[in-house]
């Protein structure tokens, strides 16, 4: 069954359909949230719970004429945007400490598990340095595997804007990582 058919079944209270949707998207969404929310796994878990809770409570929010994949990623993207706003407010009202510094230990743990840790570390650092709208498009395209059209649908922007942002992000990353050459190292 397609994702869209499963969602219609979830709306009718089909538990097996919900389990199937969860099996297909819980992992990718958790990875997306972790990448988008400063490598905070706990927050990522909470966000996965919240997004599937929305599906359970209000399945009618899904428009069956749309692709489920782009719809769920657009919901996830909006949740991340709201979290950025919350963090921005907290940063302005805090005593100057950046709450994201506390996540550096988690970052180190995650990075320790990857094969090409040095390149990855630099890459992720560069991606973080990039502003959210450019890094978001890059992650959706190269990590989550969405096409340019799907990204345009998720972010509700034109194909041209997606290409432009991708162009900027790729140029920026290429300039940041010019000292590394993973192709030559392999």
């Amino acid at each position, binding site marked *: 069954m397609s994702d869209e058919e499963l969602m219609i079944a979830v709306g009718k209270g089909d538990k097996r359909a919900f389990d199937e949707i969860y099996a297909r998207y*819980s*992992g990718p969404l958790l990875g997306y949230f972790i990448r988008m929310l400063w490598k905070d796994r706990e927050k990522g878990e909470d966000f*996965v719970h919240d997004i599937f809770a929305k599906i*359970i409570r209000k399945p009618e929010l899904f428009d069956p004429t749309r692709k489920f994949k782009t719809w769920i990623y657009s919901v996830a993207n909006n949740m991340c945007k709201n979290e950025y706003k919350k963090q921005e407010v907290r940063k302005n009202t805090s005593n100057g400490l950046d709450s994201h510094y506390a996540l550096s230990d988690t970052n180190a743990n995650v990075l320790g598990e*990857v094969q090409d840790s040095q390149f*990855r570390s630099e890459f992720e650092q560069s991606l973080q340095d990039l502003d959210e709208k450019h890094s978001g498009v890059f992650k959706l395209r*190269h990590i989550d595997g969405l096409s*340019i059209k799907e990204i345009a649908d998720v972010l509700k922007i034109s194909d041209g804007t997606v290409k432009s942002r991708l162009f900027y992000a790729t*140029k920026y990353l290429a300039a940041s990582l010019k000292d590394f050459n*993973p192709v030559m190292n392999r």
Partner: protein
Amino acid sequence: MERDVFEIVVEKEFIALSPEERIELKNYCSTEEEYNQLKQVLVGVNTMDWTNPEPKVETKEKLDVLFAQTHPKAGGMWYNSALAVIAPKDKPIYRQPLLQIAALALLVFLTVPFLQQNDTDDSSPLVAENSIDAGNEDVVKNTDVSGGIEEKKEDDLADTKDPQDEVSLPAVMTGFVASRGISNEVPVPAAESPTSNHPDGVFISEESIAYSLPASDQPDDVMDLLTTSF
């Protein structure tokens, strides 16, 4: 999925690019050095392990509880499963077995009376004649019954006939009257009702004939009775 410039960069070396691909990549990179930088980033990203982590089991358990609360199961009644079979909600109404059975039943209900009617119309002439004879017999019986009723009515009317109309009596009655010495001139009792033929309204039996007599002809014992009463 559409093939974009990033796939070209990952797959091909700079010298292997076609003129069309070089035009397409012009916005991203113009020299071989820029092209190689772009390539190393994209290859690096693609070769990194981006395996998605699995969510915690507790997250799924919480969602299962929430699902059970939001969509409580409908009571396990037998008719729920029966309805799910004969009237599934996911099928259009014309494909639901319940409607199909109802339509078939309606068709049979409307067709069978016509078939039965045709059977009686198409029966053999012999049967038709028998039925006609039976019908005539019924009609005859009815007429007999009606004739009997008419005869009885005539009898009733005869009882109420005026005696003066009986000018001629039957031979038996004529003999009987002669033997009693009664002439035709003798007043006939005016008995119109069977209960009281006496002119004074005294009840007497039908067999006896009452005649009005003068008081002098009355027997003496009658006068004695009257005397004693005074």
